[in-house]
């Protein structure tokens, strides 16, 4: 390869845990003889201070710019090597690790020489991957424009206050001109919170006075495009003018949920049986009611006992207000006997003093509303009582609301119908993703009171401010291994956006159409199943590309013995289980050669095909347990890719069992060992693929087929989407779909083989000759040829009255 780099390998002895078990001298000799590797060092402990000093010295002396450490678990130790060797000019991606201790030394009873041979193959494969690495510059994230707070929720104000307090400029996009209006309407979202309004007003005045806050009055949010640091936000004009576009660096969404009234099954009529929002309106327009007021905290009956805390606080606040102003009104709180009353000692005392009655009812019997009475069952005596009322106040129904749903949709927040917007956190290491969360605040996120909503606003603002300050100081970098789009290859099909749920892939500008995509590097988690799905290879994970993985499998496949098995393990499942088996020293079949990926979904079918093409006889992919993939649906997508590979192996005339997907829980290494042993056993029964010229030709056809955009497109259609809830994907019309896919795959397989042959031989072929060379019937070949001629891929000429075909 053209890549001019110097690769160093460091072997650890790790006390007595590697050195006597693996013949280090022999391993060193073999590595030194390899032209790929410039330097080999041996350290008692590479990871300790003395060893690290040795590494740094060797790197400086030999000008090494790629390093393989053959020691222990990369999941645990790689971070330290990256941190320590940063001074030596090595960055993430330039250092790789082989778990010589846990995957080779400790887990079998092979002789030290045999273990050295195994270690050599693994190290060489990683070195080949590093050689192919095309290092990209560290991407700095800049913020173009101020922060914007939109959505119109009340958390807008606390967020704006926090931002201006931290010296960050911001635009506040709201629907009304006056903040007094917002306070007037606030009880519709947060009933029973009047006692908090003074503080809220102080915040609003503070925001109003701040020179850093610009207030704009806008209509509905229309669209948001761009990425972290550079967004275009479009609103409709409230007066019906042309849409208004703002360029902002960061977006905080303040969204309030909606309060709905209970249905008639609780007797709600809007006059005498009312909900909190109506009660609050009544209190402030007509004043406290007279007679008997009963607050029934019916959240248990409404199916949401978890909201009873909020309802009870709001009801208590209103009850107190009524009793303080209208001493003749009788106020009773009727609550489920299991509900914890969320009052402080002082509030309980105040409640007693005000004569507010708290009556528990047995939750086993649902209270019944009648005209003027509620019947309930006493939890102690089990006698049913009647409680008279003139006004019955019910808890509200809390929902996310249409407004908030709409905004969330435009902001690209993944959202299930009717559910609150609380995000599902990506279960990846913090260092893997630049921005941990979408900045969202308010009761649309999850039901909360005003205080919590404002707190969320402050939190979102603080996090945003932290990011902006870091960017202003020039210290904010995107993670190294994230997806990038080669926009010259991208046709804007949007498949990647559909299957990725990081929310990091956006059109370059405007929605829809054949517009190339780009990736927000601060949101991408680097899972890479989107990259493996791209029909045109336009999407790649930078510093961790499919080319690197192909180089790795190619090198490993060439060195493997016929009975040895290549495997891939994902860092969360297979690899972790293998590491833990190594820590425990559990023995398993030593013929397994595991390469690691950070998600099994990173494996492009071309990588899988490359393994077979270059000499592997079988391939085991070990991912997470089902539904446990840490990167969207990488595991499910791999299922589909393995399915494609099985079809192609079948077409080649090989056993479909040669490739398999398996699942491993990292905490159950014994299960992992059963997986490995059983697969290797069945592969030993199959024997190797004979590398005859005929088989080689078929494998080359297989490799070309998985890189065919049409096949990749059909495969892309089968991949599980984030909204599908079935593993491993859409199983409706499974048979019909599978047959269609098989049709496409076999067509393209033949065409790929014809193209390979014509290209290789570079001479005109007759149909008969082609059929003989490819060992196929003439009929399907004829069909393929006719199409290929029609498309202009293949030229047809006549010699002596017989059609000859040649590659154009």
């Amino acid at each position, binding site marked *: 390869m053209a890549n001019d780099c110097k690769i160093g390998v460091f072997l650890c002895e790790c006390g007595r845990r590697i050195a006597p078990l693996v013949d280090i001298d022999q391993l060193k000799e073999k590595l030194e003889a390899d032209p790929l590797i410039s330097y080999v060092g041996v350290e008692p*402990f590479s990871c300790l*201070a*003395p060893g690290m000093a040795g590494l740094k010295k060797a790197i400086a002396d030999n000008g090494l710019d790629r390093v393989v450490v053959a020691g222990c678990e990369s*999941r*645990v*130790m790689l971070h330290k090597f990256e941190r320590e060797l940063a001074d030596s000019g090595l960055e993430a991606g330039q250092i790789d690790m082989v778990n010589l201790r846990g995957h080779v030394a400790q887990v079998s009873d092979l002789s030290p020489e045999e273990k050295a041979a195994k270690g050599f193959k693994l190290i060489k494969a990683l070195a080949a991957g590093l050689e192919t690495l095309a290092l990209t510059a560290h991407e700095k994230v800049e913020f173009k424009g101020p922060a914007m707070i939109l959505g119109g929720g009340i958390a807008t104000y606390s967020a704006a206050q926090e931002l201006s307090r931290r010296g960050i400029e911001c635009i506040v996009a709201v629907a009304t001109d006056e903040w007094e209006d917002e306070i007037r309407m606030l009880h519709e979202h947060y009933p029973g919170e009047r006692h908090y309004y003074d503080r809220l007003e102080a915040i609003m005045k503070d925001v109003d006075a701040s020179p850093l806050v610009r207030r704009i009055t806008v209509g509905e949010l229309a669209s948001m495009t761009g990425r972290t640091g550079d967004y275009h936000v479009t609103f409709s004009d409230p007066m019906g003018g042309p849409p208004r576009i703002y360029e902002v660096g960061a977006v905080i969404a303040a969204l309030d949920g909606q309060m709905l009234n209970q249905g008639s099954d609780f007797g709600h009529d809007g006059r005498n049986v009312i909900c909190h929002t109506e009660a609050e309106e009544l209190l402030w327009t007509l004043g406290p009611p007279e007679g008997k007021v009963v607050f029934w905290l019916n959240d248990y009956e409404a199916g949401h006992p978890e909201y009873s805390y909020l309802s009870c606080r709001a009801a208590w606040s209103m009850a107190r207000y009524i009793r303080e102003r209208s001493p003749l009104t009788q106020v009773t709180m009727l609550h489920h006997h299991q509900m914890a009353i969320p009052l402080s000692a002082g509030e309980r005392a105040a409640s007693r003093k005000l004569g507010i009655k708290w009556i528990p009812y047995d939750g086993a019997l649902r209270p019944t509303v009648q005209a003027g009475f509620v019947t309930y069952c006493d939890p102690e005596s089990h006698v049913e009582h009647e409680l008279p009322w003139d006004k019955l106040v019910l808890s509200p129904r809390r929902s996310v609301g249409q407004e908030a749903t709409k905004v969330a949709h435009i902001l690209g927040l993944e959202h299930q119908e009717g559910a609150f917007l609380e995000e599902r956190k990506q279960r990846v*290491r913090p*260092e893997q993703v630049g921005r941990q969360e979408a900045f969202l605040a308010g009761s649309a996120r999850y039901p909360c009171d005003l205080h919590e909503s404002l707190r969320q606003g402050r939190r979102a603002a603080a996090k945003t401010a932290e990011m902006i300050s870091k960017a202003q100081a020039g210290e904010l970098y995107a993670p190294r291994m994230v997806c990038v789009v080669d926009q010259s290859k991208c046709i804007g099909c949007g498949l990647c956006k559909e299957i990725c749920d990081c929310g990091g892939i956006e059109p370059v500008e405007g929605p829809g159409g054949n517009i190339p995509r780009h990736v927000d590097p601060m949101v991408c988690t680097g899972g890479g199943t989107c990259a493996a799905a791209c029909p045109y290879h336009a999407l790649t994970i930078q510093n961790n590309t499919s080319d690197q993985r192909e180089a790795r499998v190619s090198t490993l496949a060439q060195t493997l013995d016929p009975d040895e098995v290549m495997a891939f393990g994902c860092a969360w499942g297979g690899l972790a289980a293998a590491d833990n088996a190594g820590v425990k020293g559990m023995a398993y079949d030593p013929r397994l050669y595991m390469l690691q990926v950070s998600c099994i979904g990173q494996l492009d079918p071309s990588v899988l095909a490359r393994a077979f093409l270059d000499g592997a006889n079988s391939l085991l992919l070990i991912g997470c347990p*089902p539904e446990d993939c*840490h990167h969207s649906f990488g595991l499910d997508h791999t299922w589909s890719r393995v399915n494609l590979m099985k079809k192609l192996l079948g077409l080649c005339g090989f056993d479909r069992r040669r490739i398999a997907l398996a699942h491993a829980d990292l905490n159950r290494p014994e299960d992992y060992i059963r997986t490995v042993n059983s697969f290797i056993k069945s592969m030993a029964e199959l024997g190797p693929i004979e590398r005859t010229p005929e088989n080689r030709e078929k494998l080359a056809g297989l490799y070309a087929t998985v890189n065919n955009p049409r096949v990749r497109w059909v495969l892309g259609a089968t991949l599980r989407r984030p909204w599908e809830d079935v593993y491993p994907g859409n199983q409706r019309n499974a048979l019909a779909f599978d047959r269609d896919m098989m049709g496409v795959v076999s067509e393209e397989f033949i065409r790929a083989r014809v193209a390979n042959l014509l290209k290789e031989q570079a001479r005109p072929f007759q149909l008969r000759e082609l059929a003989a060379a490819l060992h196929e019937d003439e009929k399907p070949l004829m069909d393929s040829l006719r199409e290929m001629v029609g498309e202009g891929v293949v030229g047809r000429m006549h010699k002596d009255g017989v059609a000859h075909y040649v590659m154009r």
Partner: protein
Amino acid sequence: MLSLTIDGKKVEAEAGWSLLDTARQHGIDIPTLCYHEAVEPFGACRLCVVELKQGNNSRLVASCVYPAEEGLEVFTSSEKVNSVRRWILEMLLSECPASREIREMAGQYGVNTTRFEVKDPEEQCILCGLCVRACAQVVGANAISTVGRGAQKEIGSPYLVPGEDCVACGTCVTVCPTGAMGARFERVRGVPSVIMARPGK
């Protein structure tokens, strides 16, 4: 360069190396439990004690945190050191009798039974906090910590319920020196939504 002797062997060290670093670099093995190369040393388990001779006096220090100094005379397996290790292992044996790793290590020092009271025969955890430090320093997730105090102290996520911060990477399970974290991992990351069958179950 500093020069010192370990077990009578003249060795050299750089300023900033610990005694453990220096000994391991020169092929001298010191047993450890709470120590892991990926995180800062902590000195919790005291198993890595070594004896420093100063004239007629000697004292015991934890080698993982004690820096190498010029002219030190270090003994890593003198009678005094081994006696202390046997005591520690005997106590650990009563603390976490279920740990295979602890039993094996104690066996190597001839400790097979314990005179201390065994409170929980199923316990494996020695509360060294290595998992907590790994979660903070290696992963950066800070998902686990010690919960409770004194005799009630244990390792877990806040309130001992599966937390959002855990990314289920399993670093804690891999670094755990006694195999205890495997048993409590489910309580930290949560039970997987799909549980795969086990043979015979």
